[in-house]
């Protein structure tokens, strides 16, 4: 038996023993997602147990080094873990901006002390993070951000405002882009710092979206004191970290869209909703054609994600191509949700009520509209592709 086969066998056995039955059912709502944190709210005991067991094993961040609380797995092993979890329909034990975003940045730019301090807390789900990037005046033009960070000798002092901070009201800590040099060109005066959201002078205010939900906040900083050791990387070199993280975020957002349908074909969902003709085909031919087109693009996109990962493994970095993934993946996800809405017809319009679980689909459909805005708009991605990949001249 090869090492990988042995690993698969052991993984399967471990998951069988340790994944509670309740955690093998599809998530039914956002409350079923586990985010951990100091004030974690668990929907049930099994959710807590599952997070803690996976965290203790480092499998919440399978490919991070063991010394920082990760699983220390190779890419092949991580793939096997993913497959084995999918096979028993195991839920993601921990949703975490710490794992998805801050961690990769710390692994690349953090000091040894920072890695040892923060990363294990992240993998164990003890600290919930939020991301302080956008500001009212700095959206697509993120580098024009104005939140001020002044050197006060023993500490930094942060004053300013962030917006679209995901779950800022629920987060324990923030990783934040701040301006540390107001005279330098805009990209060269930015730093990347970490601080506790309970610090004096931090306040948050949820933003209600068109979906009726409030996953984002406005976040205000009024003379917040931040210890100097909380600077990540070099002072005024934070933009490099921001770019690196945005690349991560883009690949992630592009990857996220499965039409909210847990791997089921949108065509099959439409059949369930609308029925078929005598030949077993969706009766609405125009909708059927649109669904087929979305599936063709969906498969082709999925294969492209796979190819990029394989190429990265073969030593060919993704680089600016993450912009292509972000652009295409998010636009595709919006198309899928339009088709889901069409497939469910009038029923898709229900906003309140049990049948729709209080409008789960229409709210999710509305949520997808932000996919092509957050993490750099589709237009910004197209600009990046034009300049960095195609080498088209600046206007």
């Amino acid at each position, binding site marked *: 038996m090869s090492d990988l086969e042995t690993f698969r066998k052991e993984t399967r056995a471990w998951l069988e023993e340790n994944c509670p039955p309740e955690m093998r059912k599809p998530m039914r709502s956002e409350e079923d997602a586990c985010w951990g944190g100091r004030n974690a709210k668990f929907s049930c005991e099994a959710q807590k147990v599952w997070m803690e067991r996976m965290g203790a094993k480092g499998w919440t961040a399978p490919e991070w080094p063991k010394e920082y609380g990760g699983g220390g797995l190779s890419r092949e092993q991580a793939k096997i873990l993913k497959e084995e979890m999918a096979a028993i329909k195991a839920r993601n034990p921990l949703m975490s901006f710490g794992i998805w975003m801050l961690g990769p940045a710390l692994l690349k730019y953090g000091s040894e002390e920072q890695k040892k301090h923060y990363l294990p807390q992240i993998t164990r789900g003890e600290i919930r993070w939020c991301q302080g990037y956008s500001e009212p005046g700095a959206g697509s033009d993120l580098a024009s951000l104005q939140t001020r960070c002044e050197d006060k000798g023993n500490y930094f002092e942060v004053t300013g405002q962030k917006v679209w901070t995901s779950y800022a009201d629920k987060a324990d800590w923030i990783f934040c882009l701040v301006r540390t040099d107001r005279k330098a060109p805009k990209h060269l005066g930015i730093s990347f710092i970490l601080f506790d959201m309970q610090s004096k002078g931090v306040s948050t205010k949820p933003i209600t979206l068109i979906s009726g939900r409030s996953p984002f906040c406005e976040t205000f900083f009024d003379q917040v004191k931040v210890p100097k050791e909380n600077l990540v990387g070099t002072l005024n070199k934070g933009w490099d970290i921001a770019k690196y993280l945005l690349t991560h975020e883009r690949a992630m957002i592009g990857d996220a869209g499965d039409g909210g349908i847990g791997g089921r*074909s949108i*065509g*099959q969902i*439409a*059949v369930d909703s609308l029925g*078929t003709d005598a030949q*077993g*085909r*969706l009766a609405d031919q125009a909708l*059927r*054609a649109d*669904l*087929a*087109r979305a*599936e*063709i*693009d969906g*498969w*082709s*996109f999925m*294969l*492209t994600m*796979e*190819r990029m990962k*394989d*190429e990265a*493994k*073969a030593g*060919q970095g993704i680089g600016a*191509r993450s912009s*292509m993934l972000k*652009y*295409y993946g998010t636009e595709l996800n919006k198309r899928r949700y339009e088709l889901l809405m069409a497939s469910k017809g009038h029923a898709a319009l229900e906003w309140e009520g049990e049948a729709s679980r209080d409008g789960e689909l229409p709210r999710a459909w509305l949520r997808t509209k932000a996919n092509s805005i957050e993490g750099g708009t589709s*237009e910004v*991605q*197209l*600009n990046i*592709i*034009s300049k960095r*990949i*195609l*080498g*088209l*001249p*600046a*206007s």
Partner: protein
Amino acid sequence: MALVLNEEEVMLRDAAKGFLSEKAPVSALRKLRDNNDPLGWSRELWAQMAEMGWAGILVPEEYGGIDYGMVGAGLIAEEMGRNLTASPFISTALMAVTALREGTDEQKEKWLPGIAEGKTIIAMAVDEGVKHDPAKTALSAVAHGNGYRLNGEKSYIIDGFDADALIVAARTSGEVGDEAGISLFIVEKDAAGLSSSRTKLLDSRNYAHSEFKDVDVAGDALIGTLDDGFALLERVLNVGRAGLAAEMLGASEQSFEITMDYIKERKQFDTHVGAFQGLQHRSAHLYSEIELVKSAVLKALQMFNEAPEMAGAGAALAKAKAGEVAILAANEAVQMHGGIGMTDEYDIGFYMKRVRAAQELLGDYAFQANRLAILRGF
């Protein structure tokens, strides 16, 4: 299997790239067209390709081939697409060979070595109507003496004009529209009652229209099983579909590169037109679409070895996506070139004509999308 090329495949692709861009670039196709070449491709060039093993790329080694498989074949087709190289590669080396590989030892012995040597050309005679639809085969074959008698017509036979033999999809039972009741026969060029003429299409390639009037073939002309040839025919067509998808990928890549070079050079309003966001965003979108095609095509090619039972789905996906994007690439190429893109003197028009034909052949977007939808249960 990882969606990346291995070292050997990269070498094959580079060799094909070097050879074709030197020996068979768009100017070669232009010359064949302008000279009204009766065949539409060069026998001399095909012989050279055969020497490199391309004609026998799917032929087993015992019959003189290199049996390299579809990934390599796709890489060659892609480079042919870049250069718009006219050759019987897809018709003979991919499709006919796939059919004959499932023939009897005698059939293999008779035909495969000649194909691998680049001397024998065999075309698939499938379509009868204006849209590809193999189940609608009407051309009939009825038992006659020790063999069969064929009556009917075939159209748009790829490389069928002056081919040494045709592999004909014929109805031996059932009704037009049934998948059951179709059988494959190999019919030699000089068979009595067979007459073929060349059909000239917009891409200047070789297509035949053939009439069968009481064409008698011996019993050993049957390839595969009587009445049960549809599955084999599908396997043959899938190979052709994947080959065309790879060719269209190459054509898309090349026409896109030509266009990017052009808009970086062309000036209007005192600036390079490539600096305008109106063109940049469309270019970036097209780039993204071509990236998707690359993945779909490579996966389809790999599936012939890796998961043959899924090769039909893979080929349908690749053919659909590659065809859609090739049309977009050609349209954008002409539009971004402006007036010069409309001139015969400029090469872009050749790409537009070829991909229009290639996306129609062996089933267009709607045909493939319909197959995929059925496979996915909707």
